[in-house]
């Protein structure tokens, strides 16, 4: 009886090439992408053919969810600090240094100023949970949104205003936001949209 001899082959594969590829991919992703900011509400922006990209810095983003709640975010921590300071002065609220430090790190804010102190006390997870139930008041009686924008402009004169609203947001809310901005003589702003292929 003759046995067929199977040649023993090593099952090891040289992973060097694979490693090269992955490092390349990794570099690509690290260089081209930007981190997603945590937003309290999910917003689907409508598509447009506009191809202007939004600038990276000096942006104040106004986030409007379908039910009309307004949130804001600033990209610089120094601005965040100054804004809260002047907000505190305007509404007569004294914030502690810890509260300033906590506020500075918020990705998005949007609580009525009277609840701000209590909100900053909470843990981050809890904040994320309840933030979506708040929103900055924009009604004409207590237009805190206007004060926020005013103070943000004071903190950083180069700020550009970007409005990010959901497709389903009623025009009524957009209008009230735009009127508040117009009252402050903020007549130029950007509307954030998603890319849509133009048909011509």
């Amino acid at each position: 009886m003759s046995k067929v001899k199977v040649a023993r082959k090593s099952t090891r594969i040289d992973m060097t090439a694979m490693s090269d590829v992955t490092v390349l991919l990794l570099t690509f992703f690290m260089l081209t992408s930007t981190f997603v900011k945590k937003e309290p509400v999910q917003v689907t922006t409508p598509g447009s053919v506009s191809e202007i990209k939004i600038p990276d810095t000096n942006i104040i983003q106004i986030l409007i969810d379908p039910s009309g709640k307004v949130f804001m975010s600033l990209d610089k921590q120094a601005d965040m600090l100054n804004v809260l300071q002047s907000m505190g002065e305007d509404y007569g609220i004294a914030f502690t240094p810890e509260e300033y430090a906590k506020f500075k790190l918020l990705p998005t804010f949007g609580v009525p100023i009277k609840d701000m102190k209590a909100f900053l006390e909470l843990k981050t997870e809890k904040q994320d949970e309840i933030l979506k139930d708040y929103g900055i008041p924009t009604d004409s009686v207590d237009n805190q949104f206007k004060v926020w924008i005013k103070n943000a402009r004071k903190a950083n004169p180069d700020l550009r205003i970007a409005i990010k609203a959901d497709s389903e947001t009623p025009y009524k809310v957009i209008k009230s936001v735009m009127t508040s901005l117009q009252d402050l003589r903020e007549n130029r702003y950007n509307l954030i949209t998603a890319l849509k292929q133009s048909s011509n």
Partner: protein
Amino acid sequence: MAEIQSDGGGGHGKKKGGSKQKKVSVHVDFTPMVDMNMLLITFFMLCTSLSKPQTMELSMPSNDKNVTKEQQAEVKASKAITLLLDEKNKIYYYSGIADYKNYNSLKDLAYDAKAQNSIRSLLLMRNQEAVSQINVLKKQKLDLKITQDTFEARRSRIKNGKETPVVIIKATDGANYKNLIDALDEMQICNIGKYVIDSITAGDKFLIKNKETKGAYALGK
């Protein structure tokens, strides 16, 4: 393959001169490295966004009450088109000054570019001259006859020419943000240089109501 073979000596790093130097294989096992990289890639893919969002630049008129009559831009009635954005994705338009007596002066439009009465077809028709001029310009740019800067300058001059239509966009409270963006988008596609977002008036609301009820609303009053 793929490992560093040590000489098996009792921990002595260096050998004394004279002894035979063993050949050391320098193959390193890269599998853990690949694992780690894959993990990092996955992380970056999930936690970052690749494309920056697009934006649409918008200038609103100042609502300063002190603007004098001279500063206010008067629009020729023959050049004005008023778009009324209503709820349920409806859109109407009238040209020039509204005719409150005749409900048919308000005409239906569609957002969908493929529809017969789309905003695009209306605006392209009204803006024919500018659109054809811009198309010529675009061709010149593609053939590298003019630079990007001259293209931009000339385009804006054509867009803001005297004879181009002026579009007034008015939205009711029932309209949504998408409607507004769609309407603004059409301005870009149709090369409309002069457009403005205005607040809706009682007269416009009346026109829409009248249109919906085919004139019965006005009679019922």
